[in-house]
């Protein structure tokens, strides 16, 4: 029996099966009762956390107690939603001030920052929400993976989530150019030039994005349109679908009960107030944090863009610095095409591999799974910096075989070595650690994530003038 409040009277919707116990007569599926039915959430004096029917409509009436445990999900999906709403709110305001042309863009940002009340704050919230959103969305993906929430009904949602991640990255990237300062101009130059190395269609994609051979007025218009309308629309549509698929799959993953997996086992509590309360807390904490960060640090704005002078070092946005770091070690064909393509194929195929079990709801699967994941993380944490240092100080700029073509010396040879290393690691896991397929795939994923995190951190904190290796305080 799920009571609903409508105006002053109370209405209760009953399933046919419940009717017999309540009413002595049989009747249609629904009965509109005019007398109040008291339950824990509609007692007189109880104030609902949300009278808003839309918010109530978007979720179930009851959830398993287990689903409320914070360390199961860390509320990362909800945080992403809050950050996205902050982005849309602040973005909507900035549309009225920003002028999308090379001549006017920087000046309009200056007007916003210096002359308009709260201009700096609004830009700061937008900037920090965007950066946090990328980090939180990546962590969300990691959480979903590590709790095994990609089997069965959740398969398609893994793919939708990847689509959302892609849209978020494109949205962030297109927004990066708009301030038209040196940082944004050269970051976009470097990234679009990276695209040029994709064989066949790379140059064509580059030209479509830029609206010509080089960054110019057409580029600003293109990026502005993508950033302020195309991406937000696609994000809202896909996000709604994402949430709906979570409902279809029966809410967030929960660990299997003591007896079996059946839902009857689990203890259920009303969403209002138990889940809503927690969601409001997360939302308020996120908003407060973003506000504090935005007030303390603001959004950076450097010198206006100057096509004649490249800053030194010139770096891509931080979320692409992992790829820029790859570019220093691999031939561009491998760094910006083959490796990303393989990563994409691997990540997309995650829910479609043949697993030993479809276990979900437990972090790292098991104690053994956790141990193997730690082994993988440690391996990546040691091997990636070693690779970077060896490439810098032992191998040198000529590549592995300085006399052969760079495609072999800087591309094929290190790439095959890398692949061999990964295959060997997988073999060790399966044989030595007797890892199940689930645990082995999990370990490989952890290996990849930690390696990429190390590459990104290197790009952000350890690359100085001329992209030489330096300590963070020397940049």
């Amino acid at each position, binding site marked *: 029996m799920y009571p609903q409040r409508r105006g002053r009277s109370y209405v209760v919707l009953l399933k046919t099966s419940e009717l017999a116990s309540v009413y002595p007569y049989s009747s249609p599926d629904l009965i509109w009762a005019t007398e109040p039915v008291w339950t824990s959430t509609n007692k007189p004096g109880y104030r609902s956390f949300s009278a808003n029917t839309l918010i109530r409509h978007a979720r179930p009436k009851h959830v398993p107690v287990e689903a409320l445990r914070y360390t199961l999900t860390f509320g990362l999906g909800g945080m992403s939603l809050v950050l996205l709403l902050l982005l849309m709110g602040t973005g909507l305001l900035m549309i009225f001030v920003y002028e999308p042309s090379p001549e006017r863009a920087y000046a309009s940002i200056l007007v916003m920052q210096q002359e308009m009340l709260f201009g700096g704050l609004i830009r700061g919230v937008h900037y920090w929400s965007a950066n946090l959103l990328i980090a939180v969305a990546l962590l969300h993906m990691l959480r979903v993976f590590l709790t095994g929430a990609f089997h069965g009904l959740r398969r398609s949602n893994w793919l939708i989530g990847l689509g959302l991640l892609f849209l978020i990255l494109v949205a962030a990237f297109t927004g990066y150019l708009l301030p038209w300062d040196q940082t944004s101009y*050269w970051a976009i130059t470097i990234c*679009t030039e990276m695209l040029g190395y994709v064989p066949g269609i790379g140059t064509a994609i580059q030209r479509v994005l830029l609206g*010509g051979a080089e960054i110019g007025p057409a580029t600003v218009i293109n990026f502005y349109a993508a950033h302020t309308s195309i991406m937000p629309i696609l994000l809202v549509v896909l996000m709604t679908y994402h949430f709906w698929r979570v409902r279809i799959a029966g809410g967030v993953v929960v660990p299997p009960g003591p007896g079996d997996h059946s839902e009857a086992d689990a203890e259920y509590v009303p969403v209002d107030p138990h889940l809503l309360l927690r969601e409001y807390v997360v939302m308020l904490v996120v908003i407060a944090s973003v506000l504090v960060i935005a007030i303390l640090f603001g959004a950076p704005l450097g010198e206006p863009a100057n096509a004649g002078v*490249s800053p030194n*070092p*010139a770096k891509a946005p931080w979320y692409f610095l992992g790829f820029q770091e790859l570019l220093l070690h691999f031939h561009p064909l491998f760094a910006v095409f083959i490796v990303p393509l393989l990563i994409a194929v691997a990540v997309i195929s995650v829910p479609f591999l043949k697993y030993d079990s479809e276990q979900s709801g437990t972090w790292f699967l098991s104690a053994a799974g956790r141990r193997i994941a730690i082994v993988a993380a440690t391996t990546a944490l040691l091997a990636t910096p070693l690779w970077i240092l060896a490439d810098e100080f032992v191998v040198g700029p*000529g590549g592995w075989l300085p006399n052969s073509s*760079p495609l072999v010396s800087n591309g094929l040879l290190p790439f095959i070595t890398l692949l061999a290393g990964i295959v060997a690691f997988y073999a060790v896991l399966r044989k030595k650690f007797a890892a199940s397929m689930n645990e082995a795939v999990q370990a490989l994923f952890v290996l990849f994530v930690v390696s990429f995190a190390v590459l990104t951190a290197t790009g952000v904190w350890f690359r100085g003038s001329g992209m030489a290796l330096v300590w963070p305080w020397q940049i």
Partner: protein
Amino acid sequence: MKKDRRKFLSRILQALGGLAVLEATWVAATFLGSQRGKAPSDNGARVHVAGPVERFEPGSVTAFRDGEFYLARLQDGGFLALHRKCTHLGCTVPWIADEQRFACPCHASAFDIHGDVLSSPAPRPLDLFSVQIENGIVKVDTTKSIRRGRFEPLQATRV
């Protein structure tokens, strides 16, 4: 019989729907493309008058900001117009006269006066623009940059 007809009609409907989508895409692409295609031809052929031949010493490199190129005069008197964009990731390369090299600030690529790669990661020499010398005046056409494998003496324009 009836079912087949229904199937046939719904197929036709689907095909028409697909056609409508294609048409709309084509209209959108044409709409957006027409504006883009116009932009370069507005300026026409972009020919920069660099100046009289004598102004450029052999072994010197002169920057032309408007044209986004360097005019290099080789020791033998030949002229090369080098695109200032690094062939690695598109940064602007400054000419370091003391070291006689173009040094990219982004990923430490370096090029000599011919535009040839002195140190990687740049995959190919600096792109060229075509140079004409008319009545002792050097002119550079920056409409289209020319890719090349490495420097060859024929690429230079001589008086």
